[in-house]
C-alpha cells in the first residue's frame, strides 16, 4: 500500500501545483460544539423540495422568518423530491453542507450516525414542556446518536379516500363508509367501465402510500411498528395478510394504467370523474385546484378515512417532513433560530393558513386552517398518546431498502404475486433476522 499511497500523493501534489489551488482547506470539519447563542444575522442556505403552490407556501414561511429576524437572509435551494436524499448526501460529502435542510427520518438516522447533525435536545425539551409536541412525535426525529436531531415541520395524514360530491351523488354515497364491507360495496359500485381508483404509480412513492393505511388497518399498529423497527420481517403472517388485502384492492379496483400515470394525473383522474376515488394524503387539497379551479373544498370534494378492517381498531397513517441543521454550519445562531421557527406555532401557522398542510405543532389553533377539508384532516392528527398512528414506512426506512421496497411494489402491481413480493422483501430487509 505504501507505494500506491505515495504515488497518490505525488499525483495529488502534481495536480494541485498545476492548477494552483490551495488544497486541504477542505478538511474543515466544521466547528463542533459551535456556539449557538448570539443574535441571528446573516445568510443561511436551506435545502427544500417543494415546488408550485407548496413552494410558494414554504417561501411565505421563510419570509415570516426573515421578518421576525431582520438582518437575516434565507437562501432556499429547491431540489427534486425524489432526489432529496441523494443530493443531501452529495452536498455533505463534498463539504458543501447546507445550513439546514428538509429531511426524512431515515436521513436523520443516517446523517446523525456520521455526526453531521446539530443536536436539538434543548429545543425539544422546551417544546415537550409546553405541550407543543408529544413523545411519539419526538421518537420520529431521533437520530442514531440518541439525540433529537431534527424538527418536525410539516405534518400529513394519509389513507384518505377522496371523491367529488358529484361522484358521491352518482354512487348514492350519502355518508362515509364506516366498515370495510361498506367500503368495498361502494368500490364495487364505482367499478364501472373505468376502475374505482385513479392511481398514479409512475411516481414511485404513490404505491407506498397505499401500503401504510392498509397495513395499519389489517395488521394493526403494533405489527406495523414492529415491521418498521425491523423487529419482525415481511414474512410475518399478519404482514402477509395485509399485503394480500392490498393486492386484492389493486387487482380489483386500480386503474389498469396505474404505472403509466403520474401523481398529478391521478388527482385529476378523480377530480374529473374519470375514476371515482383517489387515495391521497391531506396535502392533495391544495393540488385539486390545478385540475379544476372551480371546485370548492368541502362543498364540491372531500374525503373519508379508510375504514377499519374487520375487528381491527383503525389507526391513522401519518407522514411529514422534518428539518435538520448541519453541525458544520458557519452560522449556528441563525440556523438554530430557523429550525426553532419552523417548529414553532408562528412558522407553522403561516403555511397552515394556506392549506394543504397539517401543523405538527399541537399548539397551532384549529381555526387557522382555511377550508373544511383542511380542518377535517387536521383533526385526524394524532395529538394525544391514545390515538393509534403509524408513521410513513417508506420515509422511515430510507436508503437501499426503500429503493428496493418501491421496486418490489411496482412488481407487485404488475404481477399481483404476494408470495414473490414477500420473498423479495424478506431478502432485502434483513433487519429482523439480526
Amino acid at each position, binding site marked *: 500500500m505504501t507505494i500506491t499511497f505515495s504515488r497518490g500523493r505525488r499525483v*495529488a501534489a502534481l*495536480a*494541485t501545483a498545476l*492548477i494552483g*489551488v*490551495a*488544497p*486541504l*482547506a*477542505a478538511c474543515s470539519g466544521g466547528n463542533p460544539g459551535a456556539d449557538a447563542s448570539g443574535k441571528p444575522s446573516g445568510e443561511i442556505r436551506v*435545502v427544500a423540495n417543494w*415546488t*408550485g403552490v407548496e413552494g410558494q407556501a414554504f417561501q411565505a414561511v421563510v419570509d415570516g422568518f426573515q421578518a421576525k429576524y431582520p438582518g437575516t437572509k434565507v437562501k432556499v*435551494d*429547491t*431540489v*427534486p*423530491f*425524489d*432526489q432529496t436524499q441523494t*443530493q443531501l448526501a*452529495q*452536498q455533505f*460529502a*463534498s*463539504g*458543501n453542507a447546507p445550513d439546514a435542510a428538509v429531511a426524512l427520518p431515515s436521513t436523520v438516522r443516517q446523517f446523525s450516525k456520521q455526526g453531521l447533525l446539530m443536536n436539538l435536545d434543548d429545543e425539544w425539551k422546551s417544546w415537550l414542556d409546553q405541550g407543543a409536541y408529544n413523545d411519539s412525535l419526538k421518537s420520529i426525529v431521533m437520530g442514531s446518536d440518541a439525540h433529537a436531531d431534527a424538527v418536525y415541520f410539516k405534518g400529513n395524514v394519509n389513507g384518505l379516500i377522496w371523491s367529488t360530491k358529484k361522484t358521491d351523488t352518482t354512487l348514492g354515497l350519502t355518508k362515509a363508509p364506516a366498515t370495510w364491507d361498506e367500503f368495498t360495496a361502494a368500490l364495487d359500485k364505482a367499478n364501472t367501465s373505468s376502475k374505482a381508483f385513479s392511481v*398514479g404509480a*409512475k*411516481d414511485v412513492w404513490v404505491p407506498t402510500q397505499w401500503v401504510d393505511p392498509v397495513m395499519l388497518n389489517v395488521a394493526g399498529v403494533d405489527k406495523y411498528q414492529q415491521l418498521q423497527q425491523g423487529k419482525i420481517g415481511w414474512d410475518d403472517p399478519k404482514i402477509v395478510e395485509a399485503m394480500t388485502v392490498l393486492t386484492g384492492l389493486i387487482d380489483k379496483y386500480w386503474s389498469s394504467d396505474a404505472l403509466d400515470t*403520474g*401523481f*398529478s*394525473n391521478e388527482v*385529476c383522474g378523480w377530480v374529473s370523474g374519470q375514476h371515482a376515488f383517489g387515495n391521497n394524503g391531506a396535502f392533495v387539497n391544495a393540488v385539486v385546484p*390545478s*385540475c379544476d379551479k372551480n371546485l370548492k373544498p368541502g362543498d364540491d370534494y372531500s374525503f373519508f378515512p379508510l375504514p377499519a378492517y374487520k375487528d381491527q381498531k383503525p389507526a391513522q397513517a401519518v407522514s411529514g417532513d422534518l428539518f435538520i441543521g448541519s453541525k458544520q454550519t458557519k452560522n449556528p445562531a441563525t440556523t438554530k433560530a430557523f429550525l426553532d421557527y419552523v417548529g414553532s406555532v408562528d412558522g407553522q401557522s403561516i403555511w397552515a393558513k394556506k392549506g394543504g398542510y397539517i401543523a405538527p405543532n399541537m399548539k397551532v389553533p384549529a381555526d387557522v386552517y382555511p377550508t373544511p377539508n383542511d380542518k377535517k384532516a387536521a383533526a385526524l392528527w394524532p395529538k394525544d398518546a391514545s390515538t393509534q398512528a403509524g408513521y410513513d414506512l417508506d420515509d422511515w426506512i430510507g436508503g437501499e431498502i426503500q429503493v428496493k421496497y418501491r421496486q418490489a411494489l411496482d412488481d407487485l402491481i404488475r404481477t399481483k404475486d404476494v408470495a414473490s413480493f414477500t420473498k423479495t422483501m424478506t431478502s432485502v430487509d434483513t433487519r429482523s433476522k439480526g
Partner: protein
Amino acid sequence: MTSQWRTLTLYAILTVASIVWIVPVVGAGAIAVLPLDQSTKGWWTADPATVTFANFGRVWDGGLSGYAVNSLIIAVLSVLITLAVGTVAAYAFARMRFRFKGFVHVMLLTTMIVPVQIILIPLIPWFRTLGLNNGSWQYLGIALVHTAFGAGWSIFMLSSFFEGIPNELLESAKIDGAGSFKAFSAIALPLALPGIVSFVIIDFVFVWNDLLMGLTLLDADHRPITVGLANLNAPQLNQDDLISAGSILAILPPLLLFALLNRYYVKGLFAGAVKG
C-alpha cells in the same frame, strides 16, 4: 421494377424517414408554443391562433436561466482548456518523436473506451481534497474532468488535422531557420484551423450535453441545463408546457451551432471517421 418506380420508392422512404426523424422535435416544439389547455388536447389538433411564447419566458424565469448560464460557463471553459492543452499535445503526437509515444497514446485513447463511471465515484472526495468543491471552483473542476476524459477524443481528432498537413511545408520552415515551435505556431496551426473549428463545435456540444458529471459533481447553484431539464421532468406534474419549453431551450444552442456551422460539424466527424 422500373427505374421510375424505383426513384419514387426511394424518395418515399427517405421522406418518411425524415419525417420520423423530425417529428419528435416538432412535437416538443409544438407543445412548447401552446398553452397547456391546448396541448393537452393533442398538439396536432391545436388552434394555431393560440400560439404563444409565454412558456419560454416562464421556464426561463423559473430557474432555467441559471442552469443555462452554468452550462455556458462549463462548456466554454472546458473547450478553452481542452483547446489550449490539446492542440499542442496533438501536434506532438502527429509531428514529433518522443519516448513512450505509443504507450502514452494508448493510455489517452483508453478514455474513449472505458465508461466514464470508472472515474466518477472517487471524484467527490477528490474534489474536496483539491479544494474544487465549492463556489466557482466547481466550474474549473468539472472542466478539468471534461478535459481529461475527453483527452482521447481531442488527441485523436486534432492530430488527424495536423497529420493532413504536407510535410514539406513544415520541413521547409525549419530549413529556413525557424524553430520547431515556429513551425507549429506559424504554419501548422493556421493550416489546421478549419479542423480545430470543427473540433471546438463538437467538443462544445459534447460538454453541453453532459448530464452525469453535472448531476454528480456540482452543487445546486452550478449545475448544467441538462440537470435543470431532468429536474423539471422528475416530479410528475402537469407542466408539459414548461418541460417542453425547457427541452427546446436546452437543445437550441447545439442545434443552432449545427445549423449555422453544419459544414464544420459534419466535416469534423467525417474527418474522424475517415481517419479511423
